[in-house]
């Protein structure tokens, strides 16, 4: 589904991704861990199409399509969703408005009619109930004044409504209390499907207790230096990153 080969990127003249390769098939859940500043968010943003990142080499294909040729909105309509590490506050834009506009943009691309107001409300409320969100959040400004955890839940709400084929969740678990973590995990697990894939960027092995990954990768200095199964996350928790770095360099 997603094929990243030898990807290299720069921002503000600094090289960040330095030959990163990753292959994700439908039905899989991948976890990406790695030290601060190693390039995890950069990877997520390059895949989503952030223009500040200059791709200097390598390729990214999604369902066989060259992703790097597409605008961010085209990637979204193709079925890619990025859950932001720092969701953006947009006062003055209704949460419900954005959800509906996003859903309709995707539906239009799929050749479907726009969703009617009644159906949308039903869908939104159903997903909010699953995530333990008060329906009042629909009428608030997008992330406006939301707590850190509420913002993350809101990202998951958007994902649950859009039902992307590939969701990249950048530290969606950071700053969540235990109930929120469970709600987020439920949202992610509800999306689990043989036709979909999920990439979780996380610092904590704890998330993986709730969402079982098929693969765990370690990203360091712009490259994936080790991949393994779930047990790698435990090993990292125990031994830190130096251990992998040394092994990779040695």
């Amino acid at each position, binding site marked *: 589904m997603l094929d990243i080969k030898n990807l290299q990127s720069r921002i503000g003249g600094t090289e960040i991704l330095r030959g990163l390769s990753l292959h994700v098939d439908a039905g899989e859940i991948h976890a990406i861990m790695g030290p601060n500043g190693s390039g995890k968010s950069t990877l997520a943003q390059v895949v*989503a*199409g*952030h*223009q*500040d990142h200059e791709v200097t080499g390598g390729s990214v294909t999604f369902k066989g399509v060259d992703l790097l040729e597409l*605008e*961010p*909105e085209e*990637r*979204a*309509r193709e079925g890619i*969703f*990025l859950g*932001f590490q720092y*969701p*953006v506050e*947009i*006062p*003055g*834009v*209704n949460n419900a*408005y*954005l959800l509906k*506009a*996003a859903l309709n*943009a*995707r539906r239009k*691309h799929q050749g479907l009619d726009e969703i009617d107001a009644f159906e949308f409300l039903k869908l939104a409320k159903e997903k909010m109930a699953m995530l333990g969100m008060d329906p009042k959040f629909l009428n608030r*400004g997008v992330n406006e004044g939301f707590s850190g955890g509420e913002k993350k839940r809101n990202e998951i709400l*958007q994902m649950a409504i*859009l039902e992307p084929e590939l969701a990249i969740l950048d530290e969606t678990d950071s700053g969540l209390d235990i109930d929120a973590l469970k709600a987020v995990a439920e949202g992610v697990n509800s999306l689990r499907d043989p036709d979909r894939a999920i990439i979780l960027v996380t610092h904590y092995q704890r998330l993986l207790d709730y969402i079982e990954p098929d693969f765990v990768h370690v990203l360091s200095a712009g490259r994936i230096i080790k991949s393994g199964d779930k047990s790698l996350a435990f090993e990292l928790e125990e031994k830190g990153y130096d251990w992998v770095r040394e092994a990779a360099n040695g």
Partner: protein
Amino acid sequence: MMRLPTDKLQAIVDRLPTTRDEDWKYTDLSRAREITSRWLDAGGATVAAEIAEDIARITASIDADWFVIANGELRLPDEIPNVTAARVNAAPTAENALAELNTALLLDGLRVRIDGTPAKPVGILLIDGAADAATSQSYVDVEFAAHSSGELIEYHVSLGATDHYANGVVRIAVGDNASARHVRIQDRDLNHVQTGITHVSVGRDAKFSSAGFDLGGGLVRNDILIDIANPGADISFDGLYLAGDGQHIDNHTRVDHRVGPAISRQEYRGILNGKCRCVWNGKAIVHEGADGTDADQANHNLLLSEKAEIDAKPELEIYTDDVKCSHGTTVGQLDETSLFYLRTRGLDQGHATRVLMHAFAAGLVSRIPVEAAKATVGELVEARLAVLINTDEDFS
């Protein structure tokens, strides 16, 4: 009251500010002078156009107790609990030519006193609609009594294809421990001129929150002068201007912090498209001894056309040590991170841009201090924005 002879009136008109005056550098009142002279030459009488339906429509759009000043003539409503109103004939002494003109040509002034907590906002509709070119004056003096909590809406409208110049003076006095919430809506036709000065004084521990919305008008100049002479004042005011082809909108603000502690915050936002010019000049003066002053001013502008011009100038004068002052002005573009966020949700660049422009304006609507005016102001802002950025989308 006898009106001054025409030559005396014309002499006042000739003394109106010009672009040689520092405070009027960017705003040329030639059109106001010309319209007034023409009107005086024609006898200085105003023949009202048919505006009864407009009055009915506008006063029905916001649930308030309305006073109507049509072409300068006041209609007093029936009695309103907690609101005392009177017709006043002479405005207090004039301090400059605009105020002099106001005094000299005023037909009806309005004085209102608010006690306790009135059930509804006091609405003042200042509407002009004349058969021929005309000039009109308004004078409104509102006192919020000590410990009162009230709301005031000023709604300035002018209609019709004939030239019009409206000149107004507003005085707002907020008593000790009173809370005053104020909204000014200006939705004049694009061929009309308006100058207006608002004086605000606040008592001890008084609160004044205000928001102004300039949606129309060809040439508009608003002055708001806030005088803090008692400690504990908490003042905030917002302004939104949406300007398109042929518009000139100038907001001059001045806050005098004479004593502390006191807070003043202002935020003006503008969206400009087409050949137009806007001015924001925010002056804050922290006088000697006004310790504990906290003054903040911000002005943000979105320029959507190369022909649009903005002159933004914060001016801080600080004559004491124990103060917290900040100011920020931006002219430019939409926030890139927000644009990217929306695009990752599937909204194309154009759509995302429109959504953010809507948000930029709606942000000030959503915190409007008079709740009763929110829906109508929201609709007016959306309608103006739709024309300005050429969309018919419903962002609700």
